[in-house]
């Protein structure tokens, strides 16, 4: 819970849950909703959207990507802010939509207008909602992976760490090469599985070296990749989206963990 701020009163946030959260881990979406509501915003999720279009864009299918971008732009008209619990999808909306429409002034304007209102979750909490302290508990030694798009397209680095300092019982242990890609890369990980395996194995080794029992990140794709490899190698580290820990809903099984542990 956070103190209510007058600046947030009555402001409407359109949550963009991302397709991976929608399909695989709704708890990340609800953690995000909780964080935003605690900060005093009213949250809504429009029906008319599915995915930001990144899979098409990164595979060179610009036409299809633009179709999805238009769908997102339409669906999120009118919200004061759009918040995304992912640096990767956030980066697509914030930095790439306007590139996609470089030959279409009208849509490019709309894309830029949306980009101006769109925020990655942790950055939104720090820089717009100005959340200073959260009241969450998590007992564990945690290491945080910087997902590439968030880090390099949106400058997300300090924000999640600052927020995590407010979680009682949590000890942060930085890993080596925390800014190096985990090997997910969207369709990369299935197109080049052997290279991806080497990259994620390096990451797992760095995680293991910290002695942490929990891995956090701000992007579900990277987390599914790293959790999957940690489990395959039998490394007992739990993986959560950072929003879940900040919102204090760690009673949900960690990524890839079943009901019976």
């Amino acid at each position, binding site marked *: 819970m956070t103190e209510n701020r007058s600046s947030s009163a009555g402001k409407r946030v359109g949550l963009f849950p991302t397709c991976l959260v929608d399909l695989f881990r709704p*708890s990340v979406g609800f953690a995000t909703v909780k964080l935003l509501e605690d900060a005093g915003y009213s949250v809504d999720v429009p029906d008319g959207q599915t995915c930001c279009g990144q899979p098409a864009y990164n595979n060179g299918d610009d036409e299809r990507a633009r179709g999805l971008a238009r769908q997102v732009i339409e669906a999120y008209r009118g919200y004061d802010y759009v918040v995304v619990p992912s640096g990767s999808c956030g980066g697509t909306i914030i930095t790439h939509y306007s590139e996609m429409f470089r030959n279409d002034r009208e849509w490019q304007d709309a894309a830029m207008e949306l980009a101006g209102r769109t925020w990655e979750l942790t950055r939104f909490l720090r820089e717009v909602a100005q959340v200073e302290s959260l009241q969450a508990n998590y007992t564990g030694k945690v290491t945080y992976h910087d997902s590439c798009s968030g880090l390099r397209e949106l400058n997300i680095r300090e924000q999640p760490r600052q927020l995590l300092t407010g979680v009682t019982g949590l000890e942060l242990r930085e890993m080596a090469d925390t800014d*190096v890609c985990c090997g997910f890369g969207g369709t990369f990980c299935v197109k080049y599985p052997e290279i991806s395996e080497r990259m994620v194995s390096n990451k797992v080794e760095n995680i293991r070296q910290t002695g942490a029992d929990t891995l956090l990140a701000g992007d579900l794709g990277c987390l599914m990749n790293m959790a999957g490899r940690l489990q395959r190698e039998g490394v007992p580290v739990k993986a959560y989206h950072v929003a879940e820990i900040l919102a204090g809903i760690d009673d949900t099984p960690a990524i890839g963990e079943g009901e019976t542990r």
Partner: protein
Amino acid sequence: MKSTAHAFKANANRALKDDQLQQALAKAKDGFVLKRAKAFEHYPEFERLREHGKRIKDHTLAHLDHYLERFEEQVKARGGHVHWAETEQEAREIIVGICRKHKARSVTKGKTMAGEEVSLNEAIEEAGIEAVETDLGEYIIQLAKEPPSHIIAPAVHKTRQQISELFDTHHHKGALKAKLREVPELVNEARGVLRSKFLASDVGITGANFLVAETGSMFLVTNEGNGDLTHTLPPVHIAIAGIEKLVPRMEDASALLRLLARSATGQDASCYTTMVTGPKREGDPDGPEEFHIVLLDNGRTRMLGNQFREMLRCIRCGACMNHCPVYSAIGGHAYGWVYPGPMGSVLTPMFVGLDGTKDLPNACTLNGRCQSVCPVKIPLPSLLRDLRQQQFEAGLVGKSTRWGLGIWGFFARRPGLYHWASGLGMRLLGRLGRRRGRFSSLPMAGAWTGSRDFPAPQGKTFHQLWKQRKESGQ
């Protein structure tokens, strides 16, 4: 150089299983990254200088015709010869022609990537002339009959053990059996062999790091001094350089030199930075009698007219590959042509063609670390994405990707249908995986589950749950 980029996947998978290579790569990566980071820690102007470097290059490229003419005039005015090579073949013919004219029997070479680009060694040897690489790394791979695997450290893929063995075979005719030597011993041994080659050389061939339009000078940067022995000792010096190496003025070259050394090896300046302006003049104690510069186009002017012009800013520092997690996993040979890593994945399709290089732009997670270290701010990920788009438009994308995108796109553009169908699918998958929470194999997902478990979905989708929450009026 003949490209094997079409076999990227096979190349990469072989590299991943090569233990010696993996050892060499692991060692090299940390060295380069740490040294560069240290150099910039002590250099707060770095960010400003990067922007400055970018501007210098952008300006030059926008007026390249002007500066090239200027450069030609200046070289001629100082008694040098300028040759224009539009293609690889022309470059080879020009250079072999000069060597023949001087009845050269032995040629020494400083490291030149443009030379690799046009397969210069092969051409020289075919003409019955001995070509000796004098850069240690380049010398090692010449003995091993391999192409370079890195643009500034061509033999970075070799371990000390492998180099000792190579030297045993070539220097001692195998009389020494795999004597593992320390690095200084190896260097001294090569130096001894190369010394006599330098003295016997008829023509010295080097690359150039920068060409200065204002004075007709070229800059040559090395850490071993071999470049200087190559161009000062023989009577003829031939330099080969891409036309993008041009800069307007001396101070531009000096700004870029500051970026180059720090980005490449973390040095404030390379050990030897030499400026060459024409042949030996009256009263000069040494230097070549003749100076030739071969300006290589080989597809570069084609890039000037589109977004790939940005790639021509490249000063060949190698930082992008040193920081690329894909390059660190597979090494340079997997990329199959002269230029590896992120810069190569852009350049090779430009030079060799989209068709034989399909994997290169795709074998990248677009993580952006390369762009963040590039001293001239080349947006490598965007250029790679642009190449993917060109592949898509040219119909070069495989059926499975095309179909996959088609089916996914059909649903993704119909949110109602998408939410309904994904709701069913996830419920099924969630139920199957609920107890264990993950799958170690799944039909059609072998590429994922071959090396990692696949997390099961929680069951209901976010949209279903959100709808429930709204309907229950919470």
